């Protein structure tokens, strides 16, 4: 017989150690962090224990179930609609009073709740003693002590959970928050009215529904209208009248009074269950903050951390990148030998391996970057960065939390855009998503390196830095512009916890890092595989090209001429001629490839749009390269390589020469870099934008906006530079 399945939801405040407990129970890989609200997705895992199959759902970390942020809506809707067998509320024992707010809200929802008093060791160290028996009695909720990061109390927690799931508690027995007489009175009357009108057909607890209606809860109001049909309007009408009465009575909105009273109720509980010893232990977190958020050295330290992160990402990441490139080259080499020459070999080597390889190559950088970000999150430094940066971000019309996605944008826009979910207000989120692509991602760096290296020599570093800076400046301008036009409106409240610093667990850091990189690899892998095959196909078809020269005949003639020369010369000269012959044949082949590319579909497309790029000083080859860059920015370089008939070996050096030879000037190279910095986000980023904003409208807007800005800026750089006498 199959074991019985129980669904268990984990709820709790951000930083309560919820995710650690989730990982401990399920062993599933999942994000753990100290950055408030890092767990945004609903995550599931299963485990078979005590003869039951337990389906564990990790709800987003929230402070409340008032549906203001996405996290809160997700969490509440899950409990309401999916009706899990048990909800475990993970409570930070050292933060009992605030944690109980969510707990009382869960208590009001008609679900089976169990409290896990987590980080009990920390609470004890802080001199707090919690009477779990008393707490359990007062709220009629089973209470278990746990220490998530030491895996203590987890078995007991599951045991109690199953016990609770199988028990029959009538809701009458359940003790809930008791409000003051006037409010209780209104709740009672509304409850009775709903009962009469719906005849128990409502899928929600009636007391809870009444409370939410008195609190003017938008979502519950909508649902009532939907579920109770014509009676719904009547119910809302009665609720409105009762609300009005309470408002007059308290001279304040009922939801405010009720929040107050809930905390009053909690204060009563705290008095009975928690004793804090006078002995004040030294608070390590506060001491660390004396340094890290110090008025004078807080910023320098912050800048140092960010600098160190980039150094690690790009310098440490460089070494494995080299070996990966070699490995990929080696693989292509083998396949070229194994497979017969032809279209299929081309598809594998030039389409798939080259395309996917170009992404894999960045894996070391991305792993390191995500490791650093996980480190910031898990230690609690991320919240401090918001503390330091909020003033600056606020000037752009953004939230301190927006700094993180924007920072991550320097690594890869895709996870960066996903990280924008931590923002509560939709406007902040959309704005952050729109400006993040201006943060120059790591895939654009190879393009700058080649172009700046070829045309700016020793000044290449400064030029690349300026390009990055330009991106930042434009993001600020865009932010201000959109904030005052498209996305006008009040800022989201900036009330954010500064969690205590914690020593990160290596396991959690690695899980964290790998999870994000996996998303990157998976998404990118698929999109880029398809994209590279398409680009490859566009560049090799049509096959029956009328070449300007008959390459085959020319090649045969060339070989014949060398062969005849070689007949009557010395052995040494013969070898010399042999080398010359190979070089000449290779040059001819490259010329043929170049012409082939020019006459391919993509070549025609490039020529068609060439007039658009001409004012920017970019020739049709550059145009084609930029088109292919939609798949992934680093492809720009490989396309240029093909179009300039540069062989695979020593690509960058040869490409630099070819670029200079093709008439590209430092100025047009600069214009091209500016264009690459700003123009339409890559395929994967566009997909992420669509997914995270939930609309094609914003995706298309982002594409249109960034490309127009790119064109304008590149135009200004090129034409302005020419006017100033540069070339």
């Amino acid at each position, binding site marked *: 017989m199959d074991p019985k399945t129980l669904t268990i939801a984990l709820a709790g405040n951000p930083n309560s150690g919820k995710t650690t407990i989730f990982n401990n129970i399920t062993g599933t890989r999942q994000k753990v962090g100290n950055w408030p609200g890092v767990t945004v997705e609903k995550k599931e895992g299963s485990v078979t224990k005590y003869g039951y199959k337990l389906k564990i759902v990790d709800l987003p970390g929230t402070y409340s179930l008032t549906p203001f942020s996405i996290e809160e809506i997700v969490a509440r809707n899950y409990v309401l609609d999916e009706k899990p067998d048990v909800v475990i509320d993970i409570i930070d024992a050292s933060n009992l009073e605030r944690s109980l707010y969510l707990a009382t809200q869960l208590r009001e929802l008609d679900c089976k709740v169990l409290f896990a008093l987590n980080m009990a060791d920390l609470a004890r160290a802080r001199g707090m003693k919690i009477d779990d028996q008393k707490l359990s009695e007062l709220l009629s909720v089973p209470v278990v002590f746990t220490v998530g990061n030491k895996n203590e109390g987890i078995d007991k927690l599951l045991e109690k959970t199953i016990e609770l799931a199988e028990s029959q508690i009538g809701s009458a027995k359940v003790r809930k928050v008791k409000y003051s007489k006037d409010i209780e009175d209104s709740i009672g009357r509304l409850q009775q009215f709903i009962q009469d009108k719906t005849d128990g057909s409502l899928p929600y607890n009636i007391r809870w529904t009444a409370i939410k209606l008195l609190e003017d809860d938008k979502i519950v109001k909508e649902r009532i209208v939907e579920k109770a049909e014509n009676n719904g309007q009547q119910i809302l009408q009665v609720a409105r009248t009762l609300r009005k009465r309470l408002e007059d009575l308290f001279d304040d909105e009922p939801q405010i009074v009720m929040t107050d009273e809930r905390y009053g109720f909690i204060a009563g509980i705290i008095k009975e269950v928690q004793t804090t010893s006078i002995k004040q232990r030294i608070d390590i977190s506060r001491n660390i903050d004396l340094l890290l958020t110090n008025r004078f050295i807080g910023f320098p330290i912050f800048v140092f951390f960010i600098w160190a992160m980039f150094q690690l990402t790009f310098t440490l990441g460089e070494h494995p990148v080299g070996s990966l490139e070699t490995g990929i080259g080696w693989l292509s080499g083998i396949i070229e030998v194994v497979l017969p020459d032809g279209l299929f070999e081309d598809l594998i080597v030039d389409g798939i391996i080259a395309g996917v390889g170009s992404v894999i190559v960045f894996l070391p950088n991305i792993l390191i970057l995500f490791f650093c970000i996980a480190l910031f999150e898990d230690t609690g430094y991320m919240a401090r960065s918001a503390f330091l940066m*909020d*003033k600056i971000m606020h000037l752009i019309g953004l939230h301190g939390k927006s700094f993180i996605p924007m920072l991550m944008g320097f690594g890869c826009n895709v996870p960066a855009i996903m990280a924008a979910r931590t923002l509560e207000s939709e406007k902040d989120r959309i704005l952050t998503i729109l400006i993040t692509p201006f943060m120059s991602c790591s895939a654009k760096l190879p393009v700058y390196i080649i172009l700046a290296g070829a045309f700016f020599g020793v000044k290449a570093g400064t030029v690349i830095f300026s390009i990055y800076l330009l991106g930042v400046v434009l993001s600020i301008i865009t932010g201000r512009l959109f904030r005052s036009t498209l996305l006008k409106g009040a800022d989201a409240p900036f009330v954010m916890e500064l969690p205590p610093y914690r020593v990160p667990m290596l396991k959690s850091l690695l899980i964290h890092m790998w999870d994000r990189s996996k998303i990157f690899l998976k998404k990118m892998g698929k999109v880029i595989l398809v994209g590279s095959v398409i680009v490859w196909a566009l560049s090799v078809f049509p096959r029956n090209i009328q070449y300007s020269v008959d390459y085959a005949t020319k090649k045969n003639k060339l070989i014949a001429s060398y062969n005849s020369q070689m007949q009557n010369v010395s052995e040494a000269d013969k070898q010399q001629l042999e080398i010359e012959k190979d070089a000449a044949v290779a040059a001819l082949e490259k010329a043929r490839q170049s012409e082939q590319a020019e006459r391919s579909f993509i070549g025609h497309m490039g020529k068609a749009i060439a007039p658009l790029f001409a004012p920017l000083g970019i020739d049709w080859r550059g145009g084609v390269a930029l088109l292919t860059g939609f798949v992934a920015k680093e492809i720009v370089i490989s396309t240029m390589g093909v179009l300039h008939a540069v062989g695979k070996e020593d690509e960058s050096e040869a490409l630099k020469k070819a670029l200079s030879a093709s008439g590209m000037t430092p100025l047009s190279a600069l214009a091209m870099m500016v264009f690459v910095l700003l123009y339409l986000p890559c395929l994967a980023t566009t997909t992420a934008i669509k997914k995270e904003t939930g609309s094609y409208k914003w995706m298309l807007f982002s594409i249109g906006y960034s490309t127009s800005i790119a064109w304008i800026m590149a135009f200004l750089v090129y034409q302005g530079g020419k006017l100033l006498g540069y070339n």
Partner: protein
Amino acid sequence: MLLLSEMREGQTATIVRVGGNGILRRRILEMGILKGTEVYVEKYAPLKDPLELIVKGYHVMLRVEEAAQITVENVR
């Protein structure tokens, strides 16, 4: 009577009233920053905004403009 935003680092006070618009006010209250609560100003950020408070035993940050919606008394 003073505004929370007028308090200096290291001062403690009792909250008298939390004002502000709907969502902001509710959010602040839900984080436990409400009438009768004791609040300690831990520090201002290097750019003087936001400020870090200790409320109900935990650390929380508020923008100065938000703190200006909160009236306190008995500053010490």
